[in-house]
């Protein structure tokens, strides 16, 4: 119990952060027109690709002779990058098609 409280205390800043980010996410997304659900989902998908930063940190921590870690880390970097790059490119392609609309109306 002691340790649990300590852990929470040590990470208070992050916990604040977490709660505010949750509220922010809810706030940002409400009142979205249905037509944008797909691009929005896709864009959000790309944003959580930020996990690749964690994969890079793992790789930086790993000792150069720990091949198991390096291989798994390498896979993580590839997959994370796929998520980021693929996600943003797909979203851009979807939105490219929306672009002309406001001009015509």
């Amino acid at each position, binding site marked *: 119990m002691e*340790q649990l409280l300590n*852990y929470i205390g040590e990470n208070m800043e*992050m916990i604040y952060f*977490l709660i505010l980010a*949750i509220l*922010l*996410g*809810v706030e*940002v*997304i*409400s*009142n*979205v027109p*249905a*037509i*944008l*659900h*797909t*691009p*929005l*989902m896709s*864009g*959000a*998908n*790309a*944003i*959580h*690709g*930020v*996990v*690749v*930063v*964690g*994969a*890079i*940190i793992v*790789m*930086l921590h790993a000792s150069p002779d720990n091949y198991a*870690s390096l291989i798994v880390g*390498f*896979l*993580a*970097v*590839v997959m994370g990058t*796929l*998520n*980021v*790059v*693929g*996600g943003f*490119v*797909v979203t*851009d392609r*979807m*939105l490219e*098609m*929306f672009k002309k*609309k*406001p001009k*015509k109306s």
Partner: protein
Amino acid sequence: MSLNILEITYLIASLTFVIGLKMLSHPESARKGNLIAAAGMLIAVVATITIYQPFDSSKSLNYGLIALGLIVGTVIGTMMAKQVKMTAMPQMVSFFNGMGGACAALIAVIEYQNHNIGLASGFDGELLVMLLGLIIGSVSFSGSMIAYGKLEGKIKDRVLPMNQLINMLMLAIILGLTVYKMLGYGDSMVFYGLLVIALIYGILFVMPIGGADMPVVISLLNSFTGVAAAFGGFLYGNKAMLTGGILVGSAGTILTILMCNAMNRSLTNVLLGAFGGNKAGGAKGEAGDQTVREISISDTAVLLSYSQNVVIVPGYGLAVAQAQHICHELEKLLEEKGVNVNYAIHPVAGRMPGHMNVLLAEADVPYERLQEMEEINPKMSNTDVVVVIGANDVVNPAAKNDPTSPIYGMPILEVDQAKNVIILKRGMSAGYAGIENELFFYPKTRMLFGDAKDSLQKLTTEVKEV
């Protein structure tokens, strides 16, 4: 000094995520928003590589592998994203989402090996964060892959006997093992056991959910991956990961609920209802012996040309046939003849909300022609002809009339209110939800069988000659 710079770049990245997401929710600014978030991501990645720790020449292998990984991921990701057809967009999103989930799970695996499990008793916060990242990341990965396979048509809907019970049981085991591990018992086997069970749970979780509900599942798994990424951020005290992950986690959850609302169903209903697996749909038998009436291309052309108001209802069939351009062609021809043409967009037409808007926008259909369900339904009784192109469930009157139907309660486009209904369809197969559509047997309904693109092409030629 340099570490402060790193923190500042993470702050900038977090800001771009928030601003990007906000801009993504407005049609005019959406594309710019996407690019802003992408730029922020690039800043965060570059800063992490260069500033996170001073360059250490003994780790040149690590740097080489990071660079190689980034290059491989970028090349493959760009190629996949560029080549995918607009119709396959939903499964592409699901695939990329799975990659993110796998990345989060793998991070947890490596960090666990480095983790010092000295404290036999007491609370180990880092371990908890790792376990949660591992479990949620794995579920998201295997679930997304199944969703991808299902939408690609590679995996069929399959329901295990007592699937829900097994799922509940597995969830209980996952929770139990997590608690067991947190109390300081068990060795690495428990950790890897959790990995395996979480992967299996992801598969069983998505397996029984029907194709029509897949967008909701993808959206939900999307928010899962966000949460998994956020746990990674918690582990490293990395604020860019934390904001990005949590933002997507909460925004994704809201988006999932919005999608459920659009179908007038609750999330629990979607997840536990096993929609597509419900093969014993009520309306199936009674329609069996009724006959449908066909209509010829030339009759359709005449009917359309002399109408006042025409409404086109696009569905997944239009997307599959890639018929959006020829559809726009027909619409323009009719407009020239003084016919008022509009498109009725059901919120869940296609495989994803907004799928039809994307497709028709690709074909340059003017924005104001696309009318949402609430807008167009009151105008249906004033409509001479409704042309349904490859849509089925979203116009099925059973949703209004038949309480035993699995889609009962879903709001539909009330095309049965119009004077004539023409349905372009390949054959008499049921819609994606696997249920019969009594609309096809209504006296005012005519069927025009054939590939949507092909039929529309012939129709355009005919209309020109009328």
